[in-house]
């Protein structure tokens, strides 16, 4: 440990730091803030903005601290006159060509250049020459460009190449003619492209949908969770009055680092389209407006005589799931189902979650993708796999022969291709292999022996060992792991949804699940609790409005089994009521017991019953051992991928204009198709 530490001085204060750091990182540790534009923690070092100049004793000139390695006994000065003058000079150069359009710039108020010009800028310019003008570039429907503002830090270029894994951005020309552009001004095809907006230190790359909408100081910040995939990226929702104006990431090193997918960043306009605002009842084949009293009265009478089933959708929080479970237990057992896509599971936690912590994927040297397309199902996990690939990990793909943004070795489309010689050889040599099995296979498994065989296979090849479990089950839905922990599922391990018809349910309550439209419920009375009118609502007999995840508090458990809280941002639209309060009302009408009177009481009851879930941000511990069987046998099953269109994977995104534009300009563009296929 002490071998790695060296003694340096920063502003005459002695400090011990790791010798592998740069001068800038050491200064950060010492609490000295260094101005910067091109340097970013998550990207490679470029050293081209020169803003981070510091003085090093005995060095003749100022040095850029982001590129300078530390040395024993180094004495760094960050606050001298010389440093200040140097930085002022750099700032003056940066501002020669930067337009003075802050009043109409979307970055205004949260702009690195603006902030740093407050410290290092002059009050007037010494240049009489015209500022250079650069034509704006097309980067697709999400990123707005005003390239005259660009200061050529190349953060966006490095992001596209190193993080998103789509080397499509670059800097053309040189000197005064330097311009940032995508190849031939095509749209960026990455699912993470929106992150260049946060990275851009000036207003050159800004959000197209957010253009001219608000100033940062007008916005109310709410911490929330991305519910559009199962990763549970930490997001910050910015709203003004009763409207969400943008979504940006919050840093969480264990999950999403500093990135979020384009879907959650840009589909917020869909939150307000096609909303169910009041209860509806089907009268004479037609859905018509109704009141809560009327609709609940009808529902109550139906529930008295008919055998009910509850379906749980993809965006349901734990509190809702818990209250549904509590309510449905009054009607018997096996009448709640969240696995509407037929996902096969075993009883223990590690058979339906991602067992490798997300931030450890990058340490793997062999990754097997089994019937999963993380690129569009969970872009954040795909980024982690890309990181592993850059660390020389081999990646094998079984399922459909999909093109990724990294090289994969395709083995075939059957589960039994796991036994292929090439893979076994690689597995025997690997020290840290990971298997990721996705919904394309999991939803098609008919024989539970297959799932047990996968566990046995994993044990045999050291994917699972005493101290680690690298057999991962990936589904793209935010609610799934949490609902399974609550036991909101029927006892059939395989094909639970298809087998529901055997039980002859007469009334189906769907909590945001579009699967209520399935043919097997054609003879049932259908009730849809949800926020968006789509197929599910269209086919229902009663529609009850419920709030969106941004309109109520809720706990979600992410794919790793990490409980996180999404907070309420504004009041529900229309007369929407939270699910638990509807359930409570029905319980009272039907004289069932439902003690909690407030949301807080409900949550504390939930957390008392499931104490493990009360530690937010901690991964749940699996306490059951995995079953091992004597012989490995894989059934043949066809693959069906759960998501084919990244931008249109759920009711909310389907109603977003921005997402529709993405489909039009990115997916439907023939020249881009080969890359994003």
């Amino acid at each position, binding site marked *: 440990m002490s071998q790695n530490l060296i003694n340096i001085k920063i502003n005459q204060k002695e400090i011990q730091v790791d010798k592998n750091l740069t001068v800038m990182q050491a200064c950060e540790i010492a609490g000295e803030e260094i101005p910067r534009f091109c340097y970013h923690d998550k990207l490679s070092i470029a050293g081209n903005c020169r803003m981070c100049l510091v003085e090093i004793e005995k060095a003749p000139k100022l040095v850029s601290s982001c590129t300078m390695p530390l040395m024993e006994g180094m004495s760094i000065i960050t606050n001298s006159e010389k440093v200040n003058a140097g930085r002022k000079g750099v700032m003056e150069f940066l501002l020669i060509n930067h337009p003075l359009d802050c009043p109409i710039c979307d970055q205004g108020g949260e702009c690195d250049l603006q902030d740093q010009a407050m410290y290092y800028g002059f009050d007037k310019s010494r240049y009489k020459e015209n500022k250079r003008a650069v034509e704006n570039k097309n980067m697709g429907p999400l990123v707005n460009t005003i390239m005259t503002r660009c200061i050529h830090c190349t953060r966006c270029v490095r992001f596209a190449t190193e993080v998103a894994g789509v*080397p*499509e951005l670059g*800097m*053309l*020309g*040189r000197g005064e003619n330097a311009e940032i*552009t995508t*190849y*031939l001004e095509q749209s960026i095809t990455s699912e993470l492209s929106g992150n260049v907006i946060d990275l851009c230190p000036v207003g050159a790359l800004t959000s197209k949908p957010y253009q001219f909408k608000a100033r940062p100081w007008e916005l109310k910040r709410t911490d929330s969770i991305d519910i559009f995939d199962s990763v549970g990226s930490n997001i910050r929702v910015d709203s003004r009055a009763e409207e969400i104006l943008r979504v940006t990431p919050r840093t969480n090193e264990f999950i999403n680092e500093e990135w979020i997918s384009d879907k959650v960043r840009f589909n917020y306009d869909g939150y307000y389209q096609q909303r169910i605002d009041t209860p509806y009842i089907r009268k004479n084949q037609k859905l018509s407006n109704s009141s809560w009293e009327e609709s609940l009265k009808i529902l109550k009478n139906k529930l008295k005589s008919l055998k009910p089933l509850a379906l749980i959708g993809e965006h349901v929080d734990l509190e809702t799931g818990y209250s549904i479970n509590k309510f449905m237990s009054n009607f018997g057992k096996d009448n709640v189902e969240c696995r509407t896509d037929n996902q096969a599971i075993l009883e223990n936690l590690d058979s339906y979650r991602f067992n490798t912590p997300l931030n450890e994927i990058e340490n793997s040297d062999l990754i097997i993708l089994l019937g999963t397309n993380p690129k569009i199902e969970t872009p954040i996990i795909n980024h982690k796999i890309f990181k592993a690939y850059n660390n020389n990990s081999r990646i094998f793909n079984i399922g459909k022969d999909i093109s990724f943004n990294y090289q994969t070795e395709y083995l075939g489309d059957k589960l039994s291709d796991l036994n292929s010689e090439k893979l076994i050889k690689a597995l025997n040599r690997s020290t840290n292999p990971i298997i990721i099995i996705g919904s394309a296979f999991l939803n098609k498994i008919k024989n539970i022996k297959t799932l047990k065989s996968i566990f046995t296979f994993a044990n045999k090849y050291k994917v699972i060992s005493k101290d680690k479990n690298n057999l991962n089950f990936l589904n793209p839905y935010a609610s799934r792991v949490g609902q399974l922990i609550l036991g909101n599922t029927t006892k059939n391990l395989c094909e639970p949804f298809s087998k529901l018809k055997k039980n002859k349910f007469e009334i189906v309550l769907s909590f945001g699940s579009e699967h209520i439209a399935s043919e097997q419920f054609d003879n049932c009375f259908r009730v849809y609790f949800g926020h968006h009118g789509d197929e599910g609502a269209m086919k229902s007999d009663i529609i009850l409005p419920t709030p969106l995840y941004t309109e109520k508090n809720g706990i979600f458990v992410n794919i790793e089994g990490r409980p996180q809280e999404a907070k309420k941002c504004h009041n529900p639209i229309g007369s929407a009521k939270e699910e638990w309060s509807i359930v409570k009302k029905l319980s009272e009408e039907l004289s069932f017991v439902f003690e909690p009177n407030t949301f807080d009481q409900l949550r504390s009851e939930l957390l008392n019953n499931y104490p493990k879930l009360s530690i937010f941000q901690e991964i749940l511990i699996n306490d059951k051992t995995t079953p091992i069987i004597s012989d490995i046998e894989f059934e043949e099953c066809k693959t069906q991928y759960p998501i084919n269109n990244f931008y249109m994977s759920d009711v909310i995104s389907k109603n977003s204009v921005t997402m529709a534009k993405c489909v039009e300009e990115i997916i439907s563009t023939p020249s881009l198709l080969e890359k994003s296929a």
Partner: protein
Amino acid sequence: MSGNHPGLSNNFSRSGEKFSWSKDNLKSIKNIISKYPKGREQSAVMPLLYLAQEQNHNWISIECIETIAETLSMPKIRVTEVASFYSMYNTRPVGENLVQICRTSPCWLRGSNKITNTICKETKCEINDTSEDNKFTVVEVECLGACSNGPMIQINNDFFEDLDEDSTKKIINNIKEGKPNIIGSQKGRRSSENA
């Protein structure tokens, strides 16, 4: 004036024709790539751009870039970056003869202005322009490194030094008529020996 120097433009265009390496070039490419360590084949991008330009009538089209990117299995934007950075890769079509006139101080002091005027008059095209018969493209460049023999011009791969208005006229006319030219000093000097 029509736009800027063909080597300094960031706008690339398609030629409309497929670009595939000639047999000779395929051989040279193999040789060039073998000079770089394994895994570093992309370092060969500059010589390959030069070969492509030679084969593609002295300019780099989008088709060239795509072929090079494929040959070296590197992203197209990376090839584009290199091609746009260096002024000696032309990003738009040029005439059969690319006339580069040195206008840096030593040549300018020795009368490069007059040479420029003569060339523009003889080729009937302006600076950065291509003549109507597609025989000439005239550009002004900075120092070409033959300062002691100024004023000088470069036509394609050849230097013409110690010019005056008459000798320049002759050179251009010879090219027009397909006659050979004396390369180097027009005053009979050997390299840069004392005049």
